[in-house]
């Protein structure tokens, strides 16, 4: 599914369509109009709503909502989670892409399918599986309790669930990219006497750095914004196991709409920054062929 998330050809310049192969002007304007109206209604209106609700009681209550200790604790937990999940999944993505694209082995297609698997799993189920494994009545629950290890309703569970839902992002980005680049550059470096790690750092990494960054940015956006999976494993303890999205839910359910939307505006800013970075990287990648 991740192949759909990314669209490296999006920034490609288009040649003008010849006159006789296009619609008459009124039809053209009508189609553009309907398309724009649809985007405005479905995408732009929710964004406008977030901002207008967040600032509906003025700047000071906006700042007040963000300075709330519970909001700051949620921000800290969200950042911690992303700081663990994104590098770990990136390391995995690099290792998986290296093994899959530089070598031949049986079961390669199965491995690629398994890497994609988390995208096919509902967020709620992504959280559920960890509760079934580590929860009080889970498979490992009694053993964990004996040793006083807390995973569910604690930070480790939140990080694990986030790792699961963001699992394929970097790998899915790197596999096609490294596949297209082949093995010749690396082989040349090795035959000139370079050692493994050096080959990776000097030859492979410069070729894939933008693709890697692209995957990490998408991975990060999902890691910071994940709701369903984290909601199942968090236990919703204020100031302790609430991430930003969960904090928004609590505020909203307590009818603190202005505060909920103020916190939501932070996550919307993250989304907009992500989209801008994504489109810059897409142009860079299509320009330099990688």
């Amino acid at each position, binding site marked *: *599914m991740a192949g*759909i*998330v990314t669209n490296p050809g999006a920034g490609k310049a288009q040649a003008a369509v010849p006159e006789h*192969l*296009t*619609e008459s002007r009124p039809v053209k304007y009508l*189609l553009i109009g*309907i*398309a*724009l109206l*649809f*985007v405005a209604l*479905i995408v732009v209106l*929710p*964004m406008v*709503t*977030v901002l207008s*609700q967040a600032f509906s009681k003025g700047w000071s209550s906006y700042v007040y909502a963000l300075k709330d200790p519970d909001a700051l604790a949620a921000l800290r937990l969200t950042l911690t989670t992303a700081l663990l999940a994104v590098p770990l999944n990136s390391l995995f993505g690099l*290792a*998986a892409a290296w*093994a899959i694209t*530089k*070598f*031949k*082995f*049986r079961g390669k297609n*199965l*491995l690629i399918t*398994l890497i994609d698997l*988390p995208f*096919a*799993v*509902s*967020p*709620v*189920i992504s959280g*559920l599986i960890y*509760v*079934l*494994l580590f*929860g009080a009545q889970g498979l490992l629950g009694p053993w964990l309790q004996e040793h006083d290890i807390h995973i569910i309703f604690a930070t480790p569970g939140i990080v694990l669930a986030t790792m*699961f839902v963001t699992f394929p992002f970097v790998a899915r980005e790197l596999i096609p990219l490294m596949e297209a680049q082949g*093995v010749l550059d*690396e*082989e040349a470096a*090795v035959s000139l006497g370079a050692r493994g790690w050096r080959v990776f750092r000097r030859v492979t990494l410069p070729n894939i750095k933008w693709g890697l960054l692209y995957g990490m940015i998408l991975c990060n956006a999902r890691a910071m*914004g994940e*709701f*369903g999976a984290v*909601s*199942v494993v968090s236990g919703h303890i204020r100031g302790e196991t609430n991430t930003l*999205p969960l904090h928004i839910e609590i505020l*909203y359910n307590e009818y603190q*709409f202005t505060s*909920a939307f103020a916190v939501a505006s932070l*996550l919307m800013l993250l*989304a907009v920054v*992500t*989209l801008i970075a994504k*489109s810059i990287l897409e142009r860079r990648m299509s320009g330099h062929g990688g």
Partner: protein
Amino acid sequence: MAQQTRNPSRLLPGFRLTMGFTTLYLSLVVLIPLAALAIKSAGLPPSQWWDTVTAPRVLASYKVSLMTSFFAAVVNLAFGLLLAWVLVRYRFPGKRIVDGLVDLPFALPTAVAGIALTTIYAPNGWIGQLAQPFGLKIAYSPLGITIALIFIGLPFVVRTVQPVLQDLESDTEEAAVLLGAYRWRSFRRVILPQLIPALLTGFALAFARGIGEYGSVVFISGNMPMKTEIAPLLIITKLEQYEYGQAAAIAVVLLLLSFVLLLLINLLQRWAGRRLHSA
């Protein structure tokens, strides 16, 4: 599982290290937890398992999830095609921004989308209050769920159709025009058939995503059992009642539904690949 048969680059190092780490990490994060789902679900006696997944409330939740996802995917099929068409074929001011905005549903956290859409479509919201005089309830009804899923699924059809439309050879289109075909006719007879695999793939992806979606739906749905309760929410309810086995059983059925859809997508893409080669 992964046995090295032939190494195309016998020179390159690192196979054992990277393969080892890949399988270890994959097992720990994905495979073992998913196995826990199978084990817990199998822990329920077969008759109880069947009673769980065929209970009226559970069946109703599957129906709500499937129906709303299906209609949302249908809407996205039509408007996704239109958007892809407009973005590929026409030039207009702000086109790049519109193109970027199509990805917003991927980047915006679902909870943010959920509360924003609920605020818009609630009876006192910007659009909700326009609908109310007509007795139309949008938020807290299946219609509201469908709207949330239209938002979530918007990028899928656009992003699958866009590249195909971009690479379409103009020869056949040109020929159709020379033979005197009208615009609509050449679209229907020449362009549309070539887009069908991509359209169906985008449709199935949006559909599959909708079935599992939780964050954007849970606020707008109102969560009334039998009416607007989606299957993922019912899983959470069972979990909160410590009915782990039942939660697992409902989850397994939901997971199977999405796997069947993804299998269909794979078959579709193989079919499309064959068509492309034979053409």
